[in-house]
């Protein structure tokens, strides 16, 4: 089936079998391999992207269902080579080790902070509880997102 959608601000078209997930479509057809696939059944959160501004698991959505949507992936966050606030704060806080889970955490944190700019640590922990990291022990990730929230508030 033919699919036309907006990805990171640009109109993209492609063709996919109905069974192809949005995650595989982004990676294989649009060469946007920043979106990672961990469990492929909605548990790990690594494949989180924004669809029409809301965080969704791209392994639990068919590519054909994203037709007409505005999708943002990890590749769409930086502006003119400058990392987004969440990216920079997570970089500064050493919020990753192997980096496999990082795109999912960054996208989930980006969506959450834009809706909840005043979130405290407990709310951030809850918001990120659906994303799995096997390296960091999470503390540095929480630190990074808290730092991003603080920087966002300071403008």
């Amino acid at each position, binding site marked *: 089936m033919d699919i036309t959608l907006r990805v990171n601000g640009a109109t993209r078209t492609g063709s996919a079998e*109905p*069974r192809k997930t949005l995650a595989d479509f982004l990676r294989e057809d649009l060469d946007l391999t920043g979106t990672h696939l961990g469990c*492929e059944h909605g548990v790990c959160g690594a494949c989180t992207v924004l669809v029409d501004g809301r965080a969704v698991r791209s392994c639990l959505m068919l590519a054909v269902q994203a037709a007409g949507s505005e999708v943002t992936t990890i590749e769409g966050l930086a502006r003119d080579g400058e990392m987004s606030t969440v990216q920079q704060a997570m970089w500064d806080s050493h919020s990753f080790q192997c980096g496999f889970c990082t795109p999912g955490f960054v996208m989930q944190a980006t969506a959450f902070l834009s809706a909840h700019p005043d979130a405290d640590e407990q709310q951030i922990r809850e918001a990120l*509880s659906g994303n799995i990291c096997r390296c960091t022990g999470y503390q540095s990730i929480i630190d990074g997102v808290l730092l991003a929230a603080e920087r966002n508030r300071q403008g």
Partner: protein
Amino acid sequence: MKLPAVEYEAPETVAEAVDLLAEHEDEASVLAGGQSLIPLLALRLARPATLIDINGLHELSGVSASNGWVAVGAMTREYVAEDSTVIADTVPLLAAALPLIGHEAIRNRGTIGGSLAHADPSAELPAVALALDAELVVRSRSGERVIPAASWFEGFLATTRGADELLVEVRFPRAALGTGVSFTEVARRHGDFAIVGLAASVTLSDGAISDARLAFCGVSDVPVRAAEAEDLLVGEGPSASLFEEAARLATADLDPPADLHGSSEYRKQVAATLVRRGLHAAVGNADERR
């Protein structure tokens, strides 16, 4: 794993969807939010020949209140219901359960109807629907049928929906004056499947309990109502000893399944604890609602 090859239909009206269901019956699965069905496909636990994607049926999204009932369209996404002031004001038990469903990214796609049609016994919404005596409206070529929640849940991931029927709406009764609610659950991690959960609703009038509703998730292959405990509570004034006795009655006949998250005995003990906690919490916020 990748999804198996499957035919795909995307009807644009309920009438088209119902025609497709009549044509494919058991060979088709209805795709709503996909947060349970797509994992089942990926794990090869479901192998439908055809997916009937109802995400294009905008007529099935929305919340409306009338005549003591709140009607929620089957395709209403969980985050929309969570943000709904109508639901917060009139069906507080549903409002209490919604934030506990999965994680934010799951609720952004998952739907009210999808959860009830999937009928996972450890999910929150089936327990809420059972506790509140919600009504499920299904449509087929031969018309509409209204099924009380008490006769909707048939077994593990099984409902009394006919293969040619589409769940189109869920109706929840408006909470009476003086009603307090709680949804308490024990899970390994916020957002994980509940090991045991309890939907509790208590209505107070003149200091006595005039209506009590208790339904568990995670203790059987279907959600379970604690009718004997409810009968005990009605007419009494809330007290710790009353809740203790209600917890005993509510769990006396439970024989929960055992898995790596907990033995049957553990689940039973958690269930009794949740009855005490849930009733305290519900009575505690009963005065806040006029």
